[in-house]
């Protein structure tokens, strides 16, 4: 004799959480009670509709404000930098071990650190909807003058219109060797790429083009004298390489 299912069991049936035997028994029970079956099927339909309605939120870009530690720890740039790196590492997925230590250890080779830091900064700011940059491209003169002053050298953000990317603006970031400038560009579809310019590369040498993959962020980077450059985007290596070549050529021509 099959025991009459409780309301709790019927709820569990809706959610597919009964064992196979009991589920079959409840199936039989419902076969004989169309009204009850209709009610429970409506509940299943609710589950589907709720997921269909709200699951898209999972894929929305995360606001930067949600990913940062409480504001009161922020007055110090140094802490901000550490938090940024930790958040960036998390956004990139994996890389649990190195995030804080790797960036802070003076022993780590600057050439190795450059693409990581650039990719982290990209991962943090590129999805930002409201405040992707501190100063927008509409104030380009001010932007360039400000960042040039802070980095202690005349900067010329490259023009990437020919490659389909327009300057969005830029921001100042803390780096190991002093301030770092981040220029952000976007194409017509909203795809963003960032150019990370750091000064104070200790080794003062030149490297060729190098490529690194950090999570889903592709990075082309190179060192030119005391400058380190890194171009980051979540696009394929080939496309990013073409843009990087443009950037490289323009900077070399200055």
């Amino acid at each position, binding site marked *: 004799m099959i025991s009459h299912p409780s*309301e*709790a069991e019927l*709820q*569990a049936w*809706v*959610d597919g*959480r009964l064992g196979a035997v009991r589920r079959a028994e409840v199936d039989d029970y419902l076969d004989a009670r169309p009204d009850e079956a209709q*009610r429970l099927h*409506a*509940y299943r339909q*609710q*589950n589907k*509709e*709720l*997921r269909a*309605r*709200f*699951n898209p*939120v*999972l*894929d*929305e870009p*995360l*606001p930067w*404000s*949600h*990913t940062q*530690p*409480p*504001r009161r720890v922020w007055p110090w740039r140094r802490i901000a930098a550490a938090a940024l790196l*930790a*958040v960036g*590492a*998390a*956004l990139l997925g994996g890389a*649990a071990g190195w*995030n804080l230590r790797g960036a802070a250890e003076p022993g780590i080779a600057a050439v190795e650190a450059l693409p990581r830091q650039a990719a982290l900064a990209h991962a943090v700011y590129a999805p930002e909807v409201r405040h992707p940059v501190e100063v927008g491209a509409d104030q380009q003169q001010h932007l360039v003058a400000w960042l040039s002053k802070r980095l202690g050298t005349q900067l010329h953000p490259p023009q990437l219109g020919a490659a389909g990317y327009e300057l969005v603006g830029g921001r100042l970031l803390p780096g190991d060797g002093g301030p770092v400038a981040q220029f952000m560009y976007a194409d017509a579809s909203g795809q963003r790429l960032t150019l990370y310019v750091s000064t104070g590369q200790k080794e003062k040498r030149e490297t060729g083009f190098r490529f690194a993959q950090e999570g889903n962020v592709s990075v082309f980077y190179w060192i030119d004298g005391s400058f380190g450059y890194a171009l980051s985007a979540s696009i394929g290596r080939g496309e990013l390489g073409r843009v990087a070549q443009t950037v490289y050529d323009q900077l070399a021509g200055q």
Partner: protein
Amino acid sequence: MPDPREHLLACLPRLRRYARALTGERSSADDLVQDTMERGWSRLSQWRAGGDMRAWLFGIMHNLHIDQLRRKHMPPADPDEAQALAAPSSAAARLELRDVQTALALLPAEQREVLLLVALEEMSYEEVAATLGIPLGTVMSRLSRGRERLRLLMLGHAMPAPLKVVK
């Protein structure tokens, strides 16, 4: 052992989904997530490694949400009842009520929470009980009442009286 900060950030998209469904509105949801994350960050050292981070964070969000409702002097059930009562029975209003989000907003908050944790988060009933700090039996009765109420709302019924007695 995964870094707790990463663990916390990994829960963020789900918190946002839940908050959006719970509040039914983007800016309140963003505020709720912001507050939850701030509290989560500041109490991260209190989180017991190996514990259930998701239940911990959703529990924080639950408490903040209840606080919010209290601050607005809106005991969870009342405004919902009032709206349900006021719902006109015209054809247009019925049609609108068939929208799942609109109907969801008419559920008492405590039923909405349980339903969302089960349907969206796919938490086990025991996890829901632990997250909300209520007995398992209460989870089941709120789930049952919430689903039935949502079903009737989506069929275009105005809900005339609180269904407090149903077990």
